[in-house]
């Protein structure tokens, strides 16, 4: 903008803002934040863009018309309707919003690590819509994420797919209609042989054999539980009196849903033997494994994966960070794809998630995947794996307007996200973010000074406190420790990023402790 360079820029901008306010063009003075979602314009036209549809090739100088949050038209040139918000994306690249098939953001806790079968817990109940990682992932073009429980348990907690609707309350995050999931984990993490604490009895299982037995045992229980209810209902509907119904068991109910195909299994794994083990157990009990996560040795059993119809969600090029990851190779994604497996590239990490486009692009070098094949691995493929491909994953008429706009080809290392849209709302706008930073800093400083002032006044009449308050959570954890601790069972090394500690601290909700 030209006015940004003039010495009177601030005043001009303020005046302009006032004018727009008066005209009713800006309905909300507040910037989008953890507590305020952005506006939802009824009609948006993105024009002059290079559109990578994923489903039907690339359209140069194309346009996308968005109506009520859905893609209404995709084409070469579309005339802007009268009331449309027009985004001129000349020289920019539009792709379907990135979908991260393995994420641990936006949650207040990740792992119920105390038990080997923690299917009783549900990530959906503890979503944290104020986790700053949501916003940071938006800044990396991510629009949907599979929020998984940790991997400390052979059978972990219930999981869900969310849309990164920053500023909306927790109830607005879940991807409507997406099939819920459950986390499984194989190998070192659930057997916990490296995690014993002095004085604590070691948790069962301690071997890979035990992991298999744990899963088998839980599904045997679930099968019995299902039968107990079926028997009860049969006898009850036959008019039998005075029946005591079975006790509802919230630990087994999700497993019954797995048996009934109503809940997807997303299983953490590395080695070929454990992958085959789970496929055998699943076959025995008659359920499907929807995705194998990480699946670093997937290239060794790609045919078995393809035959079982299981998806594979892997890393681009992380390996050798532990013995069971020694056989990982960067060709994994390409090799599995060649054998007919639906492959996605995931992050498992909030920082990694900000450049999943580049992670996917690595398979162009390692394995020779095409540009579009690589792009698919962070858009359509994860959508298929999560069963949300009817709604997202490609740029097609009728799909949700979940889009990421880059300044370069997203498969390039120079690509930076300019805007991220979900349901036709601009949840991330790089220019706007940069423009608002001084304002935020100013507010921060003003508040900081104000609070400091009142704090000084108060400190005079502070008295020593002897008693402990009721309902006060013991201050056993410091802000910032939370995520680090929950990451423990996750065996992935942190990528070299300076912001990891900072982001963990920022993820903590203010006023969380009572």
């Amino acid at each position, binding site marked *: 903008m030209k006015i940004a360079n003039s010495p009177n820029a601030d005043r001009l901008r303020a005046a302009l803002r006032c004018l727009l306010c008066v005209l009713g063009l800006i309905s909300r003075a507040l910037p989008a*934040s*953890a507590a305020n979602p952005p506006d939802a314009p009824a009609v948006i036209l993105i024009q002059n863009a290079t559109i990578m549809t994923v489903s039907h090739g690339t359209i140069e100088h194309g346009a996308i018309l968005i109506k009520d949050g859905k893609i209404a038209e995709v084409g070469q040139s579309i005339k802007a309707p009268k009331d449309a918000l027009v985004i001129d994306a000349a020289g920019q690249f539009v792709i379907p919003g990135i979908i991260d098939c393995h994420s641990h953001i936006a949650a*207040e*806790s*990740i*792992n*119920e*690590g*105390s*038990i080997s079968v923690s299917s*009783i*817990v*549900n990530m959906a*109940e*503890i979503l*944290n*819509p*104020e986790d700053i990682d949501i916003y940071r992932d938006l800044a990396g073009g991510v629009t949907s994420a599979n929020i998984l429980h940790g991997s*400390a348990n052979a059978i972990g*907690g219930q999981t869900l797919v969310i849309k990164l609707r920053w500023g909306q*309350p*927790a*109830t607005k995050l879940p991807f409507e209609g997406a099939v819920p999931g459950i986390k499984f984990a194989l190998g070192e993490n659930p057997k916990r042989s490296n*995690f014993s*604490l002095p004085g*604590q009895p070691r*948790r069962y299982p301690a071997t890979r054999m035990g992991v298999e037995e744990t899963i088998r045992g839980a599904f045997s229980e679930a099968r019995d539980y299902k039968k107990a209810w079926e028997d009860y209902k049969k006898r009850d509907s036959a008019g039998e009196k*005075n*029946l*005591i*119904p079975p*006790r509802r*068991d*919230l*630990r087994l109910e999700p497993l019954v849903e797995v048996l009934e195909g109503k809940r997807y299994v997303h299983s953490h794994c590395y080695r070929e033997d454990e992958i085959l083990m789970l496929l055998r157990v699943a076959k025995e009990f008659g359920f499907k494994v929807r995705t194998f996560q990480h699946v670093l040795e997937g290239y060794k059993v790609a045919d078995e994966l393809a035959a079982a119809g299981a998806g594979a969600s892997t890393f681009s090029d992380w390996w050798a960070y532990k013995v069971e990851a020694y056989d990982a190779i960067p060709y994994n994604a390409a090799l599995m794809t060649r054998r007919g497996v639906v492959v996605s590239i995931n992050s498992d990490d909030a920082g990694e998630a900000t450049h999943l486009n580049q992670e996917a692009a690595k398979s162009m070098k390692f394995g020779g995947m095409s540009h579009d094949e690589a792009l698919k691995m962070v858009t359509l493929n994860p959508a298929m794996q999560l069963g949300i491909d009817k709604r997202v994953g490609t740029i097609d008429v009728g799909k949700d307007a979940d889009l990421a706009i880059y300044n370069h080809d997203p498969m390039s290392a120079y690509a930076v996200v300019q805007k991220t849209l979900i349901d036709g709302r601009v949840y991330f706008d790089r220019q706007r973010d940069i423009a608002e930073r001084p304002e*935020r800093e100013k507010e*921060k400083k003003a*508040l900081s000074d*104000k*609070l400091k002032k009142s*704090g000084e006044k108060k400190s005079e009449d502070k*008295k*020593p*406190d002897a*008693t*402990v*308050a*009721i*309902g*006060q*959570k*013991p201050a*056993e954890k410091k802000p910032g420790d939370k995520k680090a*601790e929950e990451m*423990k069972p996750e065996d992935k090394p942190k990528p070299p990023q300076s912001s990891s500690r900072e982001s963990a601290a*920022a993820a903590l909700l*203010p*006023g*969380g402790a*009572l």
Partner: protein
Amino acid sequence: MGSSLILRCASAVCVTVLLTVFCAAPTLHAQGGEPQYFAIRGARVVPVSGAPMENATIVISRGLFTAIGKDVTIPPEAWVIEGQGLTVYPGLFDSFTDVGMPTAPATGGEGGPRRAQEGARGPEDRPASTPWRSAAEEASLSDKRIETWRSAGFTTVVSAPKGGIFPGQAAVLDLAGERAGDLVVKSPVAIPLGFQTSGGFGGGFPNSIMGVLAYIHQVWLDAEWSTKAQAIYEKNLRSTARPRYDRTEAALADALEDHALILIPANNSVQLRRALELADRWHVNGAIYGGQMAYEVAPEIAAKKLPVLVSLKWPEAEKDADPEDKPSLRTLQFRDRAPSSPAALAKAGVKFALYSGGITTPKDILKAAKKSIEAGLAPDAALRALTLSPAEIFGVADRLGSIENGKIANLVVTDGDLFEEKTKIKLVFVDGHRFEAREPEKPKDPPKGDLSGKWKLSYTTPDGPEESTADLAMEKDGTVSGTITSKRGTASIISGSLSVDRFSFTLNIPLEGAPADVTFTGTFDGTSLKGSISVQGFSMEFNGVKPGGISRAMVSPGGAQ
């Protein structure tokens, strides 16, 4: 009552004094010595249930209000208190605390709760659950905060056992009594929940917030199931297997049957919205405690019609926070705006009350309440949130919370507006018993030595030598609190200090129908007390030693180790 003739006789006064010196008011009450009828005449009365009245009179008879108004006949037996310049409010109500609960947690014993560190393996082990514990049963007069809270104008609290996910049943307690049972007004009134995790890996189930929620879901289902199963079993003893008894289920099933209020912790917006969903899912009669970010979600809370207890411990920066660790804008906004939550709740039409929430110096509770007034809450709404509203929320508005005929005579009498900083609390009435409130004397100089501990006090009365015990607690600045117990009863120190080696502590007890100060002054040489007891101009010598102090001094000199 002694005759005035005897009163004039100095030695006789001594006898009277010494007979009563170490007796608390309630003890006298039992002896028939304390008045049971009071009248406060010509005061400004703020009944909360109605408009304030100027120059009004209140009559208290045997613990209840019996007359309030301008033209009120004062019964001849009443002790009349002139109310000019005084304002009378209903006794204040701290709507969630653990005042009155013994500091040592009750031992679990056999079948007791599995502590988190013992490693519960799932919901069936009932981690951190003691819903059968009852504040009414555990209430204890030994909690010194009963008096400090009362001195700050709080006559009533909702107290609950502490610790765990289901700590126990809360009760409404009045803050005075001769025996612990006198404290209890109503029990149980609520089942508080604590979203407490076992902390870290290896700590047993649940070690995450989602584990805690899952556990609570399961427990409600179990309680419901056990009620149903037990009923079917009772009807078919010979054809049905006996359901297992589980005291967590039994206690919660009873509570649910009584539509007990389930107190759900929720402070920030995310937690508040989550609490609204939980109350729906659980089908319980819910209330929220915390509530400090209600300024963002008040209308949503109003839509669900959940009452809120707002913690007055407003968020602030940690005192020794890392200066490099800059709080986020959102955190700063929260610290700034939290006190506006009560105003937001009032505006949205939510029923709310205020509670101390971890404030340990009760005088700071009103200061904190004043912050919410400065942030937009009407003063009368603030007063209501500390009196009638909590009484309504906990189902005791039929007997507490306002100055109305027939209600329990809990009052706080001040020399000005309750929320003004310079206002002093003059008198407090609990269940019609009168208590003098006063500012504790501040020590002038730092203390030399520590008075804390048990002391044996010896003195000689005209009837011969006598002993009593003092149980003292001294703070770092030399402020002394505690109790003195003679064979006649126990009285609390209303003001006490140690300044260098000079000590002074005062009891206030009714003497011949009027309150009298009994003051102990003297010097502390590091091991013993020496000084005099004075009351109404008369005094006598006394000595104080620590019981067993000599032997301990012999056993543990510095060189012994």
